[in-house]
């Protein structure tokens, strides 16, 4: 096989993949639950972007005279919290924190985890065992506990939440990517590329990574759901974003203390978390089925 033929072969494989991906969207739409998930995610993104337009009040304006109003009272859609802040507006703004943390923390974890996973899987040997030992060590900590421990050290704040949850996401990505790389590495297609004298970097970034993309995307989607729950959990424990920033977790934390006086704070903030996470999981399930029904993440 000449190198031109090999290149053509590779290009053809890529084109086949692209064709597959075109029908991916159709498959997702066909799967009604996944489509529902996608719509909710879309609405959520709209809400986060246009929060100032959607919110009926400023989320942080306090008015103690109007504290703990019920649903619909004095024009407050979901009532007010203990400081007289509008619960609805706080939930609308809270979507921003959830989305930012969800996406940024997973990106953080995915980039670092994938690099480590590729390095471990592709080069193997000592490097592999050192990296994976370290990942095993990180895996020994329950996800949320690792994030909690990191937050106690880093201190409250949006960036720190992203870093903490991002680090907790690293070992998972490293394992998934390493597994994929090991599989792809052995495939004939990579052997052809290597026999043509391609450089490591070229092989990894042009061939190995793109070919292991599907499971990584599915895993990342599911991880966003996990990161959103984790952010809410951290804020619920008082270790997340700094008050008075509205986050679903911190609204729930306040709501827990005023459960009797105004259960809406806790109910609706938590419901937002559940619906968001459920939608992402529905979408992720559909994505997995569409990309590869046999794939297990």
């Amino acid at each position, binding site marked *: 096989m000449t190198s031109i033929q090999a290149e053509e072969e590779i290009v053809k494989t890529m084109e086949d993949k692209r064709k597959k991906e075109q029908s991916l969207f159709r498959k997702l739409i066909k799967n009604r639950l996944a489509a529902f998930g996608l719509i909710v995610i879309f609405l959520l993104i709209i809400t986060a972007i246009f929060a100032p337009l959607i919110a009926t009040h400023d989320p942080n304006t306090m008015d103690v005279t109007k504290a703990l109003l019920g649903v619909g009272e004095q024009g407050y859609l979901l009532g007010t919290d203990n400081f007289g802040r509008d619960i609805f507006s706080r939930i609308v703004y809270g979507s921003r924190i959830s989305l930012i943390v969800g996406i940024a923390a997973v990106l953080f974890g995915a980039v670092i985890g994938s690099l480590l996973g590729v390095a471990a899987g592709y080069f193997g040997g000592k490097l592999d065992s050192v990296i994976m*030992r*370290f990942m*095993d*060590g*990180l*895996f*020994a*900590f*329950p*996800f*949320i*506990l690792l994030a*909690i*421990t*990191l937050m*106690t*050290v*880093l*201190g409250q704040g949006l960036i720190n939440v992203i870093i903490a949850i991002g680090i907790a996401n690293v070992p998972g990505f490293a394992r998934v990517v390493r597994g994929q790389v090991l599989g792809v590495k052995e495939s004939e297609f990579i052997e052809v590329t290597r026999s043509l004298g391609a450089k490591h970097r070229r092989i990894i970034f042009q061939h190995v990574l793109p070919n292991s993309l599907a499971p990584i995307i599915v895993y990342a989607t599911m991880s966003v*759901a996990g990161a959103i*729950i984790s952010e*809410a*959990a951290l804020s*619920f*424990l008082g*270790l997340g974003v700094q008050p008075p920033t509205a986050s679903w*977790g911190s609204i*729930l934390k306040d*709501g*827990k203390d005023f*459960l*009797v006086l105004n*259960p809406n704070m*806790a*109910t609706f*903030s*938590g*419901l937002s*978390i*559940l619906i968001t*996470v*459920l939608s*992402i*999981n*529905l979408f992720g*399930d559909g994505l997995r089925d569409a990309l590869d029904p046999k794939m297990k993440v």
Partner: protein
Amino acid sequence: MGKYIFSRLINMIPTLFVVAIIVFLITRMIPGDPASVMLGPQASREDVEALTEALGLNEPIHIQFLQYIGNLLKGHFGVSLSYNQPITDLIINRFPNTVILAVSALIIAFMIGVPAGIISASKQNSLIDYSITTISLIGVSMPIFWLGVMLVLYFSVNLGWFPATGMGSMADGFISYLKHLILPSITLATIPTATFARITRSSMLEVITQDYIKTARSKGISEFIVIFKHAFKNAFNPLLTVLGLQISSLLGGAVLTETIFSWPGMGLLIIDAIEKRDFVVVQSTVLFIALIFVIVNLVVDILYKVVNPKISYSTNKGGTK
């Protein structure tokens, strides 16, 4: 078998070592002077210096690390400043409470999740299958700290059936003890229940298309025996593999659950210690939980081999899982 357990034990050592390094590194990441952070802004300079000395923070970092490892090997976790108690005692007091909670949750998850998954798979594409699949998807998406709060709202505040917080003591009778246990264990059981249902379903669906299930049916045995004897035992392995991960998420979930219900376990200890800025307690407790997790995973792995006679006991066969 003994050889297998021994080699797994040897394999565990580097992981534990890495765990210790990670905890050490995290605590050294605290910005500023740990001693003054722990003592708070009102502390006198003498107190800070004394604590720095006591924690060995004056030593170079590698000496500190060696001291830390040395203490760990001796089982010496140090003394808590805020509790005025050896940390080992604190953990020994709290650990059983977390175990009770986690085991109750695991039992609930097993008793409900596994049968639900089996029923779902054996009635594939029926209404009951769709219901179970939907409920379990909601289950795995559940923010359990919210569920816990909602359970308190309905069953403690509104209905008054169960106490909202605390752990009953056996001295008040078994019923009171159980009443305290129910809401926290349901909260903690949610995600494992849903996960077990999902795994059991997909694993059963794979098994019931196998030839040996057709053989079993061709013998004229009842569908009940086909499903529960022939299919389920084969579908059990994937459940055991996720059990290890579930233990991890249970221990994590316990932190949240214990906080909501003021359940005096390890999780509440960590959160209390964080509020009291008692980092030594946080560090030791987190380390202890990681240790427990590694050991539990080892036990699960061994169980896996016991249940599955097909797997050889040699550890390095092929190198793939």
